[in-house]
């Protein structure tokens, strides 16, 4: 796409990379988080790269596939990028289910890392 704003390029590239890694080998995800990263996974908070990777690698499925339906990216005032993703996922032989995930990306030492990550399945709207 011509002249896509920089934050969209970075955001969509991150999103692609993240889900590719998640779906193929979650143990590699440590590379995108830092020690001060926060994850909120289905309402539960996890603090720091190690705790986050431990949570993600211990999720109880063998196979996982994410499909992105929509993604939005915005620049933030502190030169970070906010990305919001809507999609569907399938874990093992379970039924396909919608999910929502938001990320904040920050450029640290020339690499874009994820400092904030919030994930929820699309089952919480009619509680």
């Amino acid at each position: 796409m011509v002249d896509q704003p920089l934050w969209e390029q970075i955001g969509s590239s991150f999103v692609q990379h993240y889900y590719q890694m998640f779906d193929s080998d979650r143990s590699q995800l440590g590379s995108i988080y830092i020690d001060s990263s926060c994850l909120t996974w289905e309402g539960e908070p996890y603090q720091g790269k190690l705790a986050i990777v431990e949570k993600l690698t211990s999720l109880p499925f063998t196979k996982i596939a994410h499909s992105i339906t929509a993604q939005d990216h915005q620049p933030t005032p502190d030169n970070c990028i906010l990305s919001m993703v809507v999609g569907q996922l399938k874990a093992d032989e379970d039924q396909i289910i919608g999910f929502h995930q938001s990320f904040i990306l920050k450029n640290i030492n020339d690499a874009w890392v994820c400092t904030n990550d919030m994930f929820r399945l699309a089952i919480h709207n009619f509680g």
Partner: protein
Amino acid sequence: MAEKQIWQKIGEGFIQEYYNQFDNTNRMEIANLYSPVACLTWEGSPVQGREAIAAKLVGLPFKRIKHIITEQDFQPTVDNCILIMAFGQLQADEDPPMAFHQVFMLKFQDNTWVCTNDVFRLGIHNIPV
């Protein structure tokens, strides 16, 4: 439950104020919750700056709207901002209820917490359990 973290308290206060203004006023004052250079993405369309955001929200094509928030998550960011993700359902006029989710980023500016980033989408994959 342990005492709430400060970012959760601030976030909850903002959410309450935002949806109260959205649902119960003509939304003319809602721009005051945003910073002058805030970004809104509304169902995939970007809106830049407080004035444009105000115009967008005031101009939405329904007479009545009600949001019900079912879940909300809060996190502090490394730049001392607050990230919020809200889930729920909304009902506009006589339309059937629809799922939505919305992400906000808040920053402390000029002695008050303002919204610098807002992303709204209807929940197209959401399951009415």
